[in-house]
């Protein structure tokens, strides 16, 4: 009988943890804030004034086994965005070379035929550092060159 109570207690505890996890995903909890730093940014939950948007034209130079070497002449302007506290993380993530002004992105993330000469647009959205949700996070994505900064919408991660 004692064993049975223990199993029931454990089952209830597990259920509570699952409930707590789901609750913290959608509520202002300390645990939820920790999750904000690892889960994909939900841009609908970030107030517009707390989003900084950047876009620059890019051009594919070469496709090396699925990794595209891309000319990004003005990438430095994105890195120098005011309040962009994780700019070096982005530079590292895109393997930015300041001498050649190039970045490297998986060709699968590009919208076109992924051939040299293709011109696209790189967008980087940044959450300001002092915000309640997703503070300091960023997301980059590539669209065709005719998409304006005002019309761009980041894909679901």
């Amino acid at each position, binding site marked *: 009988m004692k064993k049975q109570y223990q199993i029931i207690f*454990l089952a209830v505890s597990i259920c*509570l*943890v699952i409930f707590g996890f789901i609750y*913290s995903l959608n509520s*202002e909890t300390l645990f939820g804030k920790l999750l904000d730093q690892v889960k994909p940014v939900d841009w609908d939950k*970030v107030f517009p*004034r707390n989003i900084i948007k950047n876009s620059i034209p890019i051009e594919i130079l070469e496709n090396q086994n699925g990794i595209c070497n891309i000319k990004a002449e*003005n990438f430095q302007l994105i890195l120098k965005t005011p309040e962009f506290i994780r700019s070096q993380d982005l530079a590292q993530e895109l393997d930015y070379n300041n001498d050649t002004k190039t970045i490297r992105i998986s060709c699968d993330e590009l919208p076109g035929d992924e051939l040299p000469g293709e011109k696209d647009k790189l967008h980087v959205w940044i959450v300001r550092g002092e915000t309640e949700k997703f503070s300091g996070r960023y997301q980059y994505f590539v669209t065709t060159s005719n998409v304006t900064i005002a019309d761009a919408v980041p894909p679901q991660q």
Partner: protein
Amino acid sequence: MYKIGIALMAIFAVMVIPAQGSSENGTPTYYGMGTIVLSDSLGNEAFSQILHNRVVNTGESFVIAQTFKNGTSSVADNSAISAVCVTEAAAFTPAEVDTAATFDAGTTITTGNECKEDTVVDETPQGTAVIGPITFAVSNLDAAGEIITGIGVCQGSAGAADFGTCAANGLLFAEVDTSDVTLNTGETVQITYTFDLTSSGT
């Protein structure tokens, strides 16, 4: 087994501890944004950026004074907020206490053309005011190769000509700290300022 259960209960308790501070849902919904678009000499877009603004104290007071009966006459339409001035201030950092005088003091541009105004501010959709896009060229700076570090939003004037200082027409409404943009011969920077008072359900 009880120990595991108690540990899980403790984890549950940690998960539901509320965070300090208010949710964004509880904050005012109005905001201002600056948009800059740098184009090369062929007119091709080279860089675009949308950033939040800082409405300075003089701007907040202006909104209140224009809206409510306070014993002070409202300004004429020609003098309403409709102009954008660029600055080359090094390490430009908007502050709530900034005024037209402090903005102008840091600008460093002497040509007298660093402010441009929109003759008719767009007010669609309802609840928003959009100044611009206003196009700046090298002629608005002292020379090619100079660096725009931010913008100020200021009062307009009866004429539509470019003018030299924010204080020339009155007060500073808001500031936007942008990425540092170098303007070379033939290149342009289009600046748009949007002030949004819309809120859900209204």
